[in-house]
């Protein structure tokens, strides 16, 4: 009998491997209740994977937009424990796409590595992305994510050079390609060398290759989709959400705001078609 490798939760929930749209939202911004609804709206707008951000006091890899969102979320009392608890509520609401938790490493260490991996399984979290551990420091957490069926997402950057092969070959879920050096946030121009960088990455990767950092317009989405398997959009999504902050915070006005948000996100990733 042939032994089948069992699919992970992430793999079961991922419906396609091309033209992926992966939005990033910050848990608790503007409120925890709104986050659950926003997650569902993202799926309705065509999201294939959801990145759920956990706010951190010292987000080293993030630009001002996500820093400020983290500040607002912390003020709402959001933290790693509470962020994980949002996921079952999202499932209840109808979110069926993979949810990847985005958190800096220190809150994870504080929680305890194994306890955290177990809690992710219990809360139906499919993937984990930690922006401040490179491959070399990822062994400890990797053992536990594998044990509890969570895909540990890896990042690769234009200056990774000879590291690209090592990182790409062990990538799980999807491979996060940083478009250009710097922190998260909008950029006017895309890195001109992005095509050759992505070619190199795709050569070694067994999983979809998605590009993030600085993607904020339909033109950029199209450009990047042409060279990769998907786009990750963070700061721009946070800004779209923040423009509806008041309306999203109140239950009475939330539905209307979500509808507007959905059409704005669709415009961003699908253009005017």
């Amino acid at each position, binding site marked *: 009998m042939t032994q089948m490798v069992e699919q992970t939760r992430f793999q079961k929930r991922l419906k396609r491997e091309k033209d992926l749209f992966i939005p990033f939202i910050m848990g608790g911004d503007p409120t925890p209740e709104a986050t659950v609804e926003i997650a569902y709206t993202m799926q309705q707008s065509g999201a294939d994977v959801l990145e759920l951000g956990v706010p*951190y*006091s*010292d*987000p*080293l*890899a993030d*630009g*001002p937009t996500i*820093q400020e969102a983290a500040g607002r979320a*912390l003020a709402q009392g959001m*933290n*790693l*424990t509470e962020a994980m608890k949002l996921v079952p509520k999202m499932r209840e609401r109808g979110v069926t796409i993979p949810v990847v938790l985005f958190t800096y*490493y*220190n*809150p*994870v*260490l*504080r*929680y305890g590595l194994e306890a955290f991996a177990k809690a992710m399984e219990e809360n139906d979290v499919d993937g984990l992305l930690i*922006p*401040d*551990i*490179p*491959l*070399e*420091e990822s062994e400890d957490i990797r053992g536990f994510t594998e044990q509890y069926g969570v895909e540990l997402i890896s*990042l*690769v*950057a234009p*200056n*990774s*050079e000879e*590291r690209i092969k090592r*990182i790409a070959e062990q990538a799980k879920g999807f491979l996060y390609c*940083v478009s250009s*050096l*710097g*922190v998260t946030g909008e950029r006017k121009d895309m890195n001109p060398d992005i095509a050759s960088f992505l070619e190199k990455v795709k050569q070694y990767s067994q999983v979809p290759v998605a590009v993030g950092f600085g993607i904020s317009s339909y033109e950029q989405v199209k450009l990047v989709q042409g060279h990769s398997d998907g786009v990750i959009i963070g700061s721009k999504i946070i800004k779209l959400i923040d423009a509806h902050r008041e309306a999203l915070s109140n239950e009475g006005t939330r539905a209307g705001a979500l509808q507007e948000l959905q059409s704005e996100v669709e415009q961003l990733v699908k253009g005017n078609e």
Partner: protein
Amino acid sequence: MSVVYPDNRGRYGDYGGQFVPETLMAPLKEIQDALDEAMKDESFQEEYRNELEHYSGRPTALTYADQLTKTLGGAQIYLKREDLNHTGAHKLNNAIGQALLAKRMGKKKIIAETGAGQHGVASATVAAKLGLECKVFMGEKDIERQQLNVFRMQLLGAEVISVSSGDKTLKDATNEAIRYWVAHCDDHYYLIGSVVGPHPYPKMVRDFQRVIGDETKRQFKEKEGGLPDRIYACVGGGSNAIGMFYPFLEDDVELVGVEAAGKGIDTPDHAATLLNGTQGIIHGSMTYLIQDDHGQIVEPYSISAGLDYPGIGPEHAYLHSSGRVRYESITDAEALEAVKTLSQAEGIIPAIESAHAIAQAVKEAKQMDPSETIVINVSGRGDKDMNTIMEQFQEG
């Protein structure tokens, strides 16, 4: 020296490492390679020693504290006079070393973070001297508190960049410096000011600061023969302490690191990272830090801006866990009293940072025998603190 850590992953036991975004791995490797090569190059070492001697004014004196010793009636007290360095503190030893490395790497622009402004001034100084462009990241709150140092940096030709993210202090200035560096690492060098940050920074800064301990060892031998019984140094990030302790780690000398207890170690207002913090990651390094139950970093407190940092160098975390160094803490009030004590007994006004080491040494020297000897590292001079000290004494 056979103390062979950090290992090749930059680990000191469980501490240290490189907990940074992937984008920083390449620039860190570039520095590591350049550093390894430079340290083996006699001409680089010569250049570094030359600047220390003819620019910074090293070796700094080892002063016998005659009056203080007599008054306390215990151990013989010596002071290592890092306050006599150009710019008034040990910070310049490291700034010179790293700026020479930056230049060797062909980087014409340096970035630095600063809290009170001492490392910013040291960086601006050496940038002026070596013809490098210099940007100093400084928290908005610190800019308000340290206007004189802001002006000094600007006078030296540096650009001071105000940081308004997070708590607007040193930790945020460091975050912002790192963020800027990620985007500009092709032509910028990040000149970090203490034995903190990702590998190889803690090791590099240690190696550029060990001149303090090497000189002390030699000077003490000349004056007293043998080794001192105890050595004291204050610890914020911990660069003056590591610089002093490192050459003595394998000797029979008791080493005492003194943290800032602020308003008291049992209050929330302290900066005693090792004594009151927990293990975690800050600025790319596994170490001890002050954090809440959810792993969010908490702003520390000390009257001394130079000790007001929520983390500590990973090597200190290791030396604490191994028990090789004993760590103690001193409150604001005790440190201020020590400023007065040393000023009036020896005519030396120490920085409030250094006064933490002095206060602990004064406490212990009394209990020691006159046949015993101690060395206190006076890491900087107190001129920068005159406003703070004046306010405190007027209030008191």
